[in-house]
C-alpha cells in the first residue's frame, strides 16, 4: 500500500473564538488585528460559564472558564452542534491557581486536599467540564507541548479532520500561575483561542487551511502589544493566523511549533 509521505493536511475554518487582554471576542478583535482599531490592553473579561450546572459553575477556575468561553464562541459562530464535534484542548499549564493551592497544602503539616481541588488538578479538567457543559460524548483529547502547545493542537486537530473526516473543535488556552510558580513560568495574562475545523467547505466556512512543517522564520504580529502576547503566552502563538484571517487575504503564516520545526499554514479565504 502506498502511503502519503508529506505532512500536508487540509481543513476549513468555520468558526473562531478568541479571548485575551484587550481581545473580548472575534467580532471585535478583527478590527484590532487588522490595525483598523488601536490595541488597548486591559484586564481580560471572562464570561461566566453559564452552560455548566450551578455546582460545577462554582468549581471551575479561570483557565477552564477561558477555554469554555472561546469554545462556545467558535461553535456558535460556525452554527455547529458540539455533540457532533471531536474536541481537542491544548494548554501548556492548565490551572496554575489550583496547582499552587495543592502544592501549598502538600507542603504543610496537614496534607488534606479538597476533592474538588484534586479533580480540577487533572490537565483535562477543561475537556471534562466541556463535556458536562455541552453534553458532547464525542472523543476529547487534551494535549501539552509547552510553548509548542498551539502548534501541537493544530496538528492534532487537522489530523483528525483529515483522517477521520470529522468536524473538530480546537481549543487552546492558558492562565497565569500565581507566585511562587509565576517566577518560574511567567504567563502575563489568560488567553484563549478556539477554531471550529471542518473536513468539507460549508456555508459558514471562512477559509481553507493547509498545514505543513517547515524551517522558516516565524511570523510576528506588527502591533507591539499583541506581539508581546504572542511571544509570552503559548495559546497566543496562533495570533499571526488570526491576523491573516482577519485581513481576509490568501497567504502563508509561519507559526511556532517544536524546534527545529515550524508550522506553515496556507490560508485560502472562502469569501
Amino acid at each position, binding site marked *: 500500500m502506498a*502511503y*502519503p509521505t508529506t505532512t500536508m493536511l487540509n481543513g476549513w475554518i468555520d468558526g473562531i473564538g478568541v479571548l485575551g487582554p484587550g481581545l473580548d471576542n472575534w467580532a471585535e478583535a478583527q478590527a484590532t488585528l487588522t490595525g483598523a482599531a488601536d490595541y488597548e490592553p486591559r484586564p481580560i473579561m471572562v464570561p461566566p460559564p453559564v452552560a455548566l450546572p450551578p455546582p460545577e459553575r462554582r468549581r471551575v477556575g479561570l483557565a477552564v472558564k477561558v477555554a469554555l468561553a472561546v469554545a462556545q464562541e467558535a461553535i456558535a459562530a460556525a452554527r455547529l452542534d458540539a455533540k457532533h464535534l471531536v474536541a481537542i484542548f491544548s494548554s501548556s499549564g492548565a490551572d496554575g491557581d489550583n496547582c499552587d493551592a495543592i502544592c501549598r497544602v502538600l507542603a504543610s503539616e496537614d496534607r488534606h486536599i479538597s476533592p474538588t481541588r484534586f479533580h480540577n488538578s487533572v490537565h483535562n479538567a477543561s475537556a471534562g467540564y466541556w463535556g458536562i457543559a455541552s453534553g458532547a460524548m464525542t472523543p476529547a483529547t487534551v494535549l501539552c507541548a509547552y510553548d509548542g502547545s498551539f502548534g501541537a493542537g493544530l496538528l492534532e486537530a487537522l489530523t483528525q479532520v483529515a483522517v477521520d473526516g470529522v468536524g473538530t473543535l480546537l481549543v487552546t488556552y492558558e492562565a497565569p500561575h500565581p507566585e511562587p510558580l509565576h517566577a518560574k513560568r511567567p504567563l502575563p495574562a489568560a488567553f484563549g483561542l478556539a477554531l471550529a475545523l471542518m473536513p468539507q467547505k460549508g456555508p459558514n466556512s471562512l477559509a481553507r487551511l493547509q498545514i505543513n512543517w517547515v524551517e522558516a522564520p516565524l511570523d510576528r504580529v506588527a502591533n507591539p502589544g499583541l506581539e508581546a502576547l504572542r511571544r509570552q503566552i503559548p495559546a497566543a502563538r496562533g495570533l499571526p493566523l488570526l491576523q491573516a484571517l482577519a485581513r481576509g487575504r490568501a497567504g502563508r503564516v509561519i507559526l511556532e511549533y517544536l524546534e527545529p520545526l515550524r508550522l506553515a499554514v496556507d490560508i485560502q479565504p472562502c469569501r
Partner: protein
Amino acid sequence: MTPVHLSHFTVSSCLGHGLDAILTALRQQRGGLAPCRFETVRDLDTHVGEVPKVDDFPLPASLAEYECRNNRLAFLGLQQDGFSSAVEAAIARYGRRRLGVLLGTSTAGILQTEQAYRRRDPNTGALPNDFNYRTTHNTYSVADFVRRWYRLEGPAVVVSTACSSSAKVFASAARMLAAGVIDAAIVGGVDSLCLTTLYGFNSLELLSAEPCRPFDVDRKGISIGEAAAFVLLERPGESLDANAVLLLGTGESSDAYHMSAPHPEGLGARMAMAAALRSAGLQAADIDYINLHGTATPSNDAAEGKAVAALFGDRASYSSTKGATGHTLGAAGGLEAVISALALQHAFLPGGINTLHLDPAIPIQYLTANSELAPRRVMSNSFGFGGTNCSLVLGRAG
C-alpha cells in the same frame, strides 16, 4: 483503520524492569503492591506499586536539567528490552523528522514541585533556584526528554487525559501514520508516584488500605502504582511474523457526566468499546479477552461491568491486571496494551489477582486464574477522570 504494527515494546512497573519481569510475575500470578513508604508519606494506610530502583537510574549529564522521578523512570524504561536499539534502527530507516513522540502522563514531574514548595524561601516565598518548571513539572517534560535523548526532530506531544492518557496516544499516532505525518512513533506512558495523587485519591476516599481487589464484591478502592511503558509503532511491513502484534482499532468517547465519577451505566465506556470494534472492522464475538480498566473502586467496576456485559456478554474472558501492578494512572493504558500484547504473543490470558469473591452483581466471566486459552484478538480499556474513555483492539498477525 489501517492496522499498525507494535514493532517493539517494553514496560517497567512494580513487577520489575522489562518484559521478562512482568511476564514471569503474570505467569506466577504474583503482585508487586506493598505498604506505602513512599517519600514522606507516613499517614496513609494504603498499598502502592513502586518501581524498584528508580533512583539508581540518573539521567545522562547532557540532560541533567530534566532530573525528576518521572524522567528517571522514563530513562530506566527506555533502557530495557533493546528498546533504544529499535528506536535507533527506526531513525536510520525513516529519519529524525519522521519519528513522532506521543506519550501519556497525568502528573509528569509534579513531585519536583511538591518538594520545591517545601523549600520555599522563608522570607520571600520563592521556589529554590535549582527548581526547573519546564523540564520537570510541565506535563510535556517527559516527551521533551525522550525527544531530546534520541535527538529527534519530528512532532512530539503529551496527551494528558488522566487514566486514559497513554491509551489515547495509540489513537493519535495511528492517525498521524495514516495521514503520512510520520513513519513511526514512540508511544506509551510514564507516570510516577507523587503526593498529589496519593493525597488526592485519599481525599476522594478512593484509596484501598489493602492491595486492590478488582471486581471483588468487597473491593475498597485503588492501589496507586507507577510505570513506564514504551511501544514503537510502525506501518506493517510486507511480511509479518505470525507472532507480530497489530493495533487493529481504537475507540474514544467522553462521558459528559462528572469530573471524577463514571457514567453510572457505563455509557461512555460502551461507546468507546463499540467505536474500537467499528474501527477494527470486528464484531463483539471476535474479541477473546478484555483487559478491563478495572480500578477496583465500587462505582468504576460496576459501571464498566455493565458496559462490557451489555456489549460482550459472557462470550469474552475478562480480567484487570491492576491487582498486580496497581493503577498506574497516566501510564495504565500503555502498560495494559503491553500486557495485552504479551497475552497475544505468549498465548495466555492473565488472571486478575487479589480477587477472592467475584461481585455477583456483575455478570461477566472474570478470570481469577490464568487461562491457557490462546487469544487472537483482545481489547484493552482505559477510562479516565473527566470521563475520557479509550479502548484499543490488538490482534496477532497470524
